[in-house]
């Protein structure tokens, strides 16, 4: 377990993007998202430039488009909402293909779709090129509260264990002919949740004792301390810098 099991979110590779220290990538992606959100929605070409920037990063990192598209399914609920916006939006109406749509609703739908899609793509690229363990190491190096980082570390490490436990409980329920169909079946699900909590909590106690007996004193030892050079910072800053230049241009144009 210490070796870090591979996640389906992570695509191992040895490209420039993969090799960048995580403490550089995290702020770069966050800054990129902020710049995208701050861009006025009327400037269509700016969003095209952002998409091209992300595509460039993806091609450098050798992340195939099919992988990105599969992961972008997470966005679907808000796509549905965005599609509904022009229909239910306020303001003046415009005729599009025989439908009366709200002009502002169209703008808002475009705004949410474009910005959310770019944000999701950036996050996917980050997760695809950074091992979860390394990402947390990067967060630690960025001086995030160590307690928060440790909690996230334990969560990531035991997430699959807990999910598997839940899956086994579901298999056990279903092999006994249970299917949650209406409200009367809630007590069964709730008892499963209760049992899962007790198992998780007791596992936490065991983990804590095991760690204490191995010399845990409240902070995790750092195994590979990757320091970031000025060069890697500069490389990581390329994406947000290019985005910022685009945004500044778009502000001055609009």
């Amino acid at each position, binding site marked *: 377990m210490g070796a870090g099991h591979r996640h389906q979110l992570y695509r191992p590779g040895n490209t420039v993007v993969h090799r960048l220290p995580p403490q550089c990538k995290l702020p770069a992606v966050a800054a990129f998202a902020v710049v995208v959100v701050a861009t006025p929605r*009327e400037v269509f070409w700016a969003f095209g430039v952002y998409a091209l920037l992300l595509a460039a990063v993806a091609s450098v990192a050798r992340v195939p488009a099919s992988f990105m598209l599969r992961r972008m399914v997470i966005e679907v609920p808000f796509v549905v909402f965005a599609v509904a916006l022009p229909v239910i939006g306020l303001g003046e109406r415009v005729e599009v293909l025989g439908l009366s749509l709200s002009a502002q609703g169209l*703008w808002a739908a475009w705004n949410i779709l474009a910005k959310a899609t770019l944000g999701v793509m950036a996050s996917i690229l980050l997760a695809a090129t950074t091992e979860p363990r390394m990402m947390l190491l990067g967060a630690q190096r960025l001086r995030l509260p160590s307690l928060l980082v440790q*909690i*996230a570390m*334990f*969560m990531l490490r035991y997430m699959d264990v807990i999910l598997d436990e839940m899956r086994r409980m579901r298999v056990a329920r279903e092999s006994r002919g249970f299917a949650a169909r209406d409200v009367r079946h809630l007590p069964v699900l*709730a008892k499963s949740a209760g049992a899962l909590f007790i198992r998780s*909590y007791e596992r936490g106690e065991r983990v804590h004792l095991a760690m204490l007996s191995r010399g845990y004193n409240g902070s995790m030892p750092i195994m590979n301390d990757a320091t970031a050079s000025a060069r890697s910072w500069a490389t990581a800053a390329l994406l947000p810098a290019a985005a910022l230049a685009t945004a500044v241009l778009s502000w001055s144009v609009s």
Partner: protein
Amino acid sequence: MHVPDGFFNAPVSIAAGAFAATGLGVCLRGARRELDDRTAPMAGLVAAFIFAVQMLNFPVAAGTSGHLLGGTLAAVLVGPYTAVLCVAVVLLVQGFFFADGGLTALGVNITLMAIVTTVVGYAVFRLIVRSAPRSRTAVSVAAFAGAAVSVPVAAMGFTALFWVGGTAPIDVSSVAIAMGGVHVLIGLGEGVITALTVSSVLAVRPDLVYGARGLKAPLVLRTAGGQSTEVTPEAAPEPARSAWPLLAGGALVAVLLAGVVSFYASSSPDGLEKVASDKGLNTHQESHPLGGSPLAGYGGKAVGDQRLAVGVAGVAGVGITVVAGGAIFYAVRRRGRVADRARA
């Protein structure tokens, strides 16, 4: 309910981010008191549990199903501070690893789903547990009420943020009705499953339920002769806990919030005016159903109104903060006393 990027404008995202960061800071200190050096592993495992339980779909009505948010459940089971941290970590992991919820919307997501649900749910829970007789049923009922209230309140928080800085041109009242209606139903489901889960844990390991610590029966010693003596734990002297750091922190939060809110209020007219000038008319403002309220109309009116709006927003922000801070302060004091009693 994970808000993506671009749903709220930049000022609201930043203000919510500052609020979330402050709240997390408070909870990091509080969680250490709830769990001491066990915090990291225990909270990590509980966060994994919350993550798993959010995947547990339960049937709400015919054909539709909802899933648990888990804020109140976590607060009742492990205490409010740890609960906020756990749900926040779940949201952070979902944002950074699963691309679920925008990175710039993390502040909004953490504020609504981690802080508001947990604080409101736990406050309602404590209120009922304190006034009701000590029993497991009371704890379960209180857990139900806490969870059932917390979800619509979070939805209303979303609506309020949407009112201040949403990017979609939908009637705020219709958003309120839609969000409120749906989330009252979801809240009921959440309440039922929270209460049932809490009661099932209470039946097996009552010592694990943080919210049921008051249920511990006193130790009774019986001799062979039939004499029974109740061992009353010695009351430990109340530690002199200074209120100043908390008050100073609260004031800081208030100032921060008021500052950011008024920053927003001063920048907002530009945004509204921009929309109005883009469209060449102010139909938007006229069609606003809440046009009489101080925040709604200030975009098109004179500077005096703007100042008023800034003032109202600032005062409202500080008021909310004082109430929230007071609630946290009260909870911390009570917790301290309960913890001392338990230690003795």
